[in-house]
């Protein structure tokens, strides 16, 4: 339907640089997530896309054509706001049909499309209620239907932030299903990495007004380009390498915490490097069989898993969550086996 591209977008508020050259691309029908902590510029990017904010530099194109000069009401982005922004003086049906009414469509067509949209988000029977008379989850679905009914490109600004955990999960899948069914190009802002992982075709991890990494969820998680990305996308262990020898493009031999390994990493590392080990790449074994040896410094039973912190000989600490049925006490010597295909080498300073 529409390919949206953001190139080198800049936005300055007085003396604060909110966006410092953001570049992104959503292919037609893709859902692209902007992931990052508050203040990283993800909402600002979304507001520039919607046309609520004017960028100070850069370019936004839809199907190759610039939309920077197009006002918000003609950009064709449906927006779902964090606080839903439902019109309090209009019924559910009027809220959903507002955009169609603005287009001056015949009343019969508006009614049909509103009815269909309400069915899609399971709001049947609530047409004549006012927003304040329905629950938060229902309000959220009205906001979604209202944005979807115009069949536009979609912008979602932390749409699940105000829902409780159970509803959040439900609405998350609803959004993903609807977006895929209708083939709508969508941008989704969140600070929740599991939401980003589960829903997106592509994730842009943002850091202080820049995109730290723009890649698929799998790459973001397994092959981060820097420690910031690895930290933000899930639990991670880092071990500083004492020596790094490049073997081929993106392939290295390293020494870390007394062990020698061969593994993949970010191409072109020359300086100091860190070994990234996700907890699921690690397994507990006997001291002799392990790649690393260490002492259990903390141990906790979580029900479905155990949780250990293990201090290695060089003082680095590894966190891992093994199966629950190997009781290990704090102070015990253990070995740690590594799934080398899931180990990853990153430069200490991003290239």
């Amino acid at each position: 339907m529409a390919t949206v591209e953001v190139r080198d977008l800049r936005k300055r508020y007085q003396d604060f640089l909110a966006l410092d050259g953001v570049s992104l691309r959503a292919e037609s029908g893709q859902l692209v997530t902007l992931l990052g902590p508050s203040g990283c510029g993800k909402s600002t990017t979304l507001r520039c896309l919607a046309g609520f904010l004017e960028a100070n530099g850069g370019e936004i194109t839809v199907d190759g054509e610039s939309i920077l000069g197009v006002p918000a009401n003609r950009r064709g982005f449906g927006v779902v706001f964090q606080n839903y922004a439902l019109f309090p003086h209009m019924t559910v049906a009027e809220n959903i049909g507002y955009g169609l009414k603005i287009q001056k469509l015949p009343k019969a067509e508006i009614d049909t499309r509103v009815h269909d949209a309400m069915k899609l988000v399971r709001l049947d029977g609530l047409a004549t209620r006012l927003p304040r008379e329905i629950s938060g989850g229902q309000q959220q679905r009205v906001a979604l239907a209202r944005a979807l009914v115009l069949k536009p490109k979609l912008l979602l600004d932390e749409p699940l932030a105000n829902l409780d955990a159970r509803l959040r999960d439900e609405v998350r899948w609803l959004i993903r299903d609807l977006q895929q069914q209708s083939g709508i190009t969508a941008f989704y802002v969140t600070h929740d990495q599991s939401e980003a992982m589960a829903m997106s075709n592509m994730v842009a991890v943002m850091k202080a007004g820049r995109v730290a990494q723009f890649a698929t969820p799998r790459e973001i998680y397994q092959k981060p380009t820097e420690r910031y990305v690895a930290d933000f996308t899930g639990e991670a262990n880092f071990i500083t390498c004492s020596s790094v020898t490049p073997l081929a493009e993106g392939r290295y031999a390293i020494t870390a915490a007394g062990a020698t390994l061969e593994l993949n990493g970010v191409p072109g590392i020359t300086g100091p490097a860190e070994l990234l080990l996700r907890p699921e790449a690690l397994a507990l074994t006997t001291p002799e069989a392990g790649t690393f040896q260490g002492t259990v410094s903390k141990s906790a039973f979580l029900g479905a898993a155990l949780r250990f912190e293990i201090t290695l000989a060089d003082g680095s600490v590894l966190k891992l969550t093994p199966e629950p049925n190997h009781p290990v006490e704090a102070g015990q010597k253990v070995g740690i086996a590594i799934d080398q295909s899931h180990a990853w080498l990153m430069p200490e300073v991003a290239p």
Partner: protein
Amino acid sequence: MMRNPKLLLAIPAIALIFVFMILPITNIFEMSFRTPGQSEPFGDDYTMMHYDRILGDAYYWGVLGRSLLTAGVVTLLCLIVSYPIAWHMSKAKGLKAVFLYACIASPLMTGVLVRNFGWMIAAALNGPLNETLMALGLIERPLRMLFTQGLVILALVHVFVPFMVLPINNALRNISPTLIEAASSMGATRREVFRDIILPLSFPGIYPGMILVYVLAVAAYVTPALLGGQMVSYMPTLIIGELTGTFQWPFGSALAIVLSLSTILVVGVFTALTARLMEWSKA
């Protein structure tokens, strides 16, 4: 004795309302049925003659109509003048907001007599208003503004603007900016956003503003008396004339009751007509 201590706290308020509102109104109501007195303000017997006289005389209907209509015009003009001011104020922050509040409240900071004498000087034949208009070449000869209905309306709008601006400003401040963004992302132009979102959602401010200004305008006495002169009569001038000029307390009271009931009727009809909008727009 007193079971509920909360009621104790209400006693001062109840006493105040009783002494300064219930008692006088009851008194006026009762007075309006008294026979006219010979050498004192009212007689000993009761009669319907005052109401018969008012309702049977086109003159009083005319004055009542003029009072209610003028107040309506003042209210509408106030609304038109105040809305943009309130809009501007609702966007202001910090010192600018404080400054704007002070400007808006300034008509209320002048005494009612001083303000109206000011208007008399400003609107005189050789006053600054006429001189300015002539200097600008807009008129050739001075306009007679003093003692016209137009000047009364102008002066009333001037002093009642704050009562309209403040509640509307309040209502506008309560409209979340994301509603406006949401509407524009759905394709609404600025005009449509105003018509469909801002105007209806500011109604909780428009309504009290209009009621307040209307009631104040109907009851305004000093401004019509000073700036309207002898030529145009309004109900309050007539009532005061009966009470303090000719000392016909019963007849003056009956006029006051008629004016009050008419005002209540107008406000009631307005409230009924807008009840649905009010119910929907209270966010």
